């Protein structure tokens, strides 16, 4: 499971004089779901396009399962499933026609096409839509067809560029479940600007800004690395000093109306708070963890860079 499937080295890409990606290097291991996070215009889509061979890199190299995308494009592309930002659909074709065509383009033997088609339709929840024209499908279903197109040939690497944009919350949840199920057998790169998506689906997160990699860590360590903050509400009025004196509390802030915001150190659980509240009958009736660590980090990192740029 430690095989490296994508290796990007010192990748740069210029549009005329505009630099979209600068000296980007990263790797993707087998069975990993990598979140590619960045504000709009950070170079996410450009990176995806270069990896999938739709754009030529200005400098550096991309290897997919050991095959260079420039020198051996055919071998490299056969290891890859790609869903671009705009799903490449033929609106006048039916779902079955379209997916069958995709299967043939990826050199799936004629006898295996039917099985591949029904498998991928089951995976993407398209069983009942086979005969419908793609243009008559809702956006969410078109997106599913796009994902189906990317995984029909069973590639070891799947690249999804903003797969949940423009979908309603239920569809987003379904697509996320789908991505997670893909991650169990394949490596996935997921590009997005939605932080919750990365937290919900990815093993590892990379933050990119202005074409440069500014953060790279596993999502798990991310949740632990940062201090945890909680909002609490008490029936009894308590002094701030009393709260800051509690074990593990680094900072306390009164929000009025019996509510407080407490910041705990890394890897601390609010045991002391709860024990004290019970003992001294503070009347604790709300304890809400503020799980926005990734969001905070994102804003912190991207803002910091923006300030530097000024």
């Amino acid at each position: 499971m430690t095989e490296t499937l994508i290796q990007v080295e010192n990748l740069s890409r210029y549009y005329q004089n505009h630099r979209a990606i600068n000296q980007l290097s990263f790797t993707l291991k087998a069975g990993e779901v990598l979140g590619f996070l960045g504000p709009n215009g950070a170079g996410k889509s450009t990176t995806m396009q270069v990896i999938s061979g739709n754009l030529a890199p200005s400098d550096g190299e991309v290897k997919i399962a050991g095959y260079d995308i420039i020198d051996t494009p055919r071998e490299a592309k056969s290891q890859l499933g790609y869903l671009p930002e705009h799903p490449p659909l033929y609106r006048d074709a039916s779902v079955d026609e379209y997916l069958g065509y995709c299967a043939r383009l990826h050199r799936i033997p004629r006898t295996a096409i039917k099985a591949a088609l029904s498998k991928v339709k089951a995976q993407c929840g398209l069983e009942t839509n086979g005969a419908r024209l793609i243009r008559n499908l809702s956006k969410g279903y078109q997106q599913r067809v796009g994902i189906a197109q990317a995984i029909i040939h069973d590639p070891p690497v799947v690249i999804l560029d903003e797969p949940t944009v423009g979908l309603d919350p239920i569809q987003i949840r379904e697509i996320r479940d789908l991505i997670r199920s893909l991650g169990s057998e394949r490596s996935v790169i997921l590009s997005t600007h939605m932080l919750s998506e990365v937290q919900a689906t990815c093993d590892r997160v990379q933050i990119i800004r202005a074409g440069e990699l500014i953060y790279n860590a596993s999502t798990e360590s991310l949740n632990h690395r940062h201090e945890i903050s909680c909002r609490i509400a008490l029936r009894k009025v308590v002094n701030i000093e009393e709260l800051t004196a509690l074990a593990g509390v680094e900072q306390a802030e009164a929000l009025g109306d019996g509510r407080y915001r407490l910041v705990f150190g890394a890897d601390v659980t609010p045991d002391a708070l709860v024990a004290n509240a019970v003992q001294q009958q503070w009347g604790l009736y709300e304890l809400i963890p503020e799980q926005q660590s990734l969001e905070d980090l994102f804003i912190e990192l991207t803002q910091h860079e923006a300030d530097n740029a000024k």
Partner: protein
Amino acid sequence: MIWIIGKREFVAMFQAPLAWVILAVIQFILGYMFLTNLDNFFLLQPQLMTLQNTPGVTDIVVAPLMQVAAIILLMVMPLLTMRSIAEEKRNRSLTLLVSAPLSMTEIVLGKFAGLMLFVLVLVSMLMLMPLSLYLGTTPDSGKLLSIYLGMLLLLGAFSAIGLYLSSLTENQTIAAVGSFGILLMLWIIDWLSESVTSGQSLLAYLSLLGHHESLLEGVFDSSDIAYYLLLIAAFLGLTIRQLDRERLL
């Protein structure tokens, strides 16, 4: 692979009404032309009998018909070729082909194969009219074959030029107008040559329809065939280059 893309292109053409309409309109107009030519032939027949070395029914009915067909198709082919790449660019569905394990050459040849399949259907339908002459008379089979080949080569050249123009832009109308302009220019390019002596043979050689005429007369000159094949190869090469170049921009 080329065949798979070609087949898909061919089917896609018939999923939109345009291909059907074009086939119907052309068939109708040329059917009418065929009848007029046939009528003329009956008028001329008594005079022809008195002459020696007279032109036959193929020369009087079929050759002029195909000459008109060539000019009509010069205006119609841009409408068919304009969508082949420009539409995919606009819908951003070209990514599907580019991300698949295919070379640019295979993609372009596949697109061209799709157009040629349509051309094959179109020309074969047109050739049904001359073939109906076998019911009443005996046309020159060699000439008919030469005419058939000539039409395929000419329309192949139209398709290759149209494909290239379609790869240059996202806008189908621009692709159609552009390829129409080039085709028209290549048609009239030798009109000048009669008054200008220097470079006359070059301009005459470049003319699209000039080479067609000799094939219509049943003259199978390998330089004419070479002209069309070179033209097709050149424009397909340009298309491949153009699509490859776009990845660098």
